[in-house]
């Protein structure tokens, strides 16, 4: 925490900009609500939202935890299955013609519209939430990973053939590391999609999770509690995205997009 303060006060312009923009928007919001006095049914003030959260913080956090768990399981499955599918598609003509074509066709259906179907199939427990999160998350993973696995320099593959490398060695030592930047790009999209998926699952059916909380608050015209849920979702979504981003920086210091960042921070130091 103190490190964060140091960054904000110590002239790290990126962190300072973010904090300033957030603080100013919240101040404007608070001032606007006090000045124009809109009905609390339409727009509550930030202070009122925080107060509503503080009334029952554990309740919100419990439901948020459930949604987070559904998101993470769905996301994890979409990464594992997505990468496996992508490898299959790249290595097998048959899979490319069948599965890849099918995936692209499926992707053009608004997948949220399939959510009720999952409730019919799997009931109202955690399964349909995970399944919908998985379904939304897997497309960007597969498509980006296929792209990455194919982006290997053909001369590199010639070199591997001259060295008599097995296809397993080519996959693990050349193709997969080469695809990692694309996989991370897909994961950044997928983590947000998985959260949407979990939420949609809770909207459609269920009695738990932050999506369910929103529905209950809506039923009671309790706008403040809707806003609490939205704010919590915003915070969690942002944290999830930056966790993936952080993992990328740790794992891919060699990648072009990361190098520029390293150099920038070196310039600042």
């Amino acid at each position, binding site marked *: 925490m103190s490190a964060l303060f140091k960054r904000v006060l110590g002239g790290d312009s990126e962190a300072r900009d973010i904090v300033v923009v957030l603080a100013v928007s919240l101040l404007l919001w608070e001032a606007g609500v006090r000045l124009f006095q809109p009905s609390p049914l339409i727009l509550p003030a930030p202070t009122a939202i925080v107060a509503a959260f503080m009334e029952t913080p554990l309740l919100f956090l419990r439901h948020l935890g459930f949604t987070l768990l559904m998101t993470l399981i769905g996301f994890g499955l979409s990464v594992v299955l997505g990468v496996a599918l992508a490898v299959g598609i790249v290595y097998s003509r048959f899979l490319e013609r069948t599965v890849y074509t099918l995936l692209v066709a499926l992707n053009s259906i608004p997948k949220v519209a399939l959510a009720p179907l999952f409730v019919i199939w799997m009931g109202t427990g955690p399964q349909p939430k995970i399944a919908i999160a998985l379904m939304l998350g897997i497309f960007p993973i597969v498509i980006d990973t296929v792209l990455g696995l194919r982006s290997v320099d053909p001369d590199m593959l010639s070199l591997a053939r001259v060295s*008599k490398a097995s296809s397993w060695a080519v996959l693990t030592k050349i193709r997969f590391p080469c695809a990692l930047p694309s996989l991370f790009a897909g994961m950044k999209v997928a983590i947000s999609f998985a959260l949407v998926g979990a939420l949609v699952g809770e909207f459609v059916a269920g009695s738990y999770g932050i999506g369910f909380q929103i529905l209950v608050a809506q039923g009671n015209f309790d706008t403040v509690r809707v806003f609490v849920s939205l704010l919590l979702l915003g915070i969690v979504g942002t944290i999830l995205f930056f966790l993936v981003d952080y993992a990328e920086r740790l794992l891919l210091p060699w990648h072009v997009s990361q190098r520029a960042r390293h150099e920038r921070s070196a310039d600042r130091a």
Partner: protein
Amino acid sequence: MLAEPARVADAYVSLRRVGKTYASSRGPVNALVGIDLDIRPHEFVSVVGPSGCGKSTLLKLVAGLEEISSGSLLVGDAPLRGPPDGLGVVFQRDVLLDWRTILDNVLLSIELVRKPRAEERERAMALLSRFGLGGFEHRFPWELSGGMRQRASICRALLADPNLLLMDEPFGALDAMTRDDLNVELAQIWQDTRKTLLFITHSIVEAVFLSDRVVMMSRAPGMIVDTITIDLPRPRRLAVRDSAEFASYVHRIRHHFAELGIVKE
């Protein structure tokens, strides 16, 4: 039908009436026609020709990366089926893997098959320092200049001590000064190791400076139009390029290309 030229008895690489045809949407395209070429062991042969004359295709055939459409191609007395044993290849782009250090990149061809032994590691280190990359073993490719990267890719090709080295315009992407440096370094390393070497280039000066023989190719479909033996003393230093003999070799090749309408004189 022309009589088949006599096979050079001790040739390491031997191409006889080799043709390469590609299928395209507008029917078959002849990339190479009637290529006769023998490369003796420990010989440095350059192939020089205009862009798109099929010289890179020729290299891919000898590397076993593509199949010949007609004729015969022997490497080490056996018809070629896939990449032969004891082969090293250097491409125009260094294709180093960004996530591996220079040392690990040099060890890659071994690591693709098995775990490198300690003495192979030492050999890689020795090769790198021989090419002026000592101290850069644990750097990443993107921290090095283009010339240093290409040096590393030559080390990678040399690590397994190949019988045959194929180089496809390896210095084509480098600036003129770095290119001169690498010409001298390659001439030196060839002098020491005497690898059988097939070198593809579009620089006549580079070909004359490095080679025992220069093979001239015509525009597509690629055919061999002439082969010139370069009888300059070795070891060769850059100064040899100022000599009258050197100039006359370059002139002869350029003149021949001009007659064919490939270059302007």
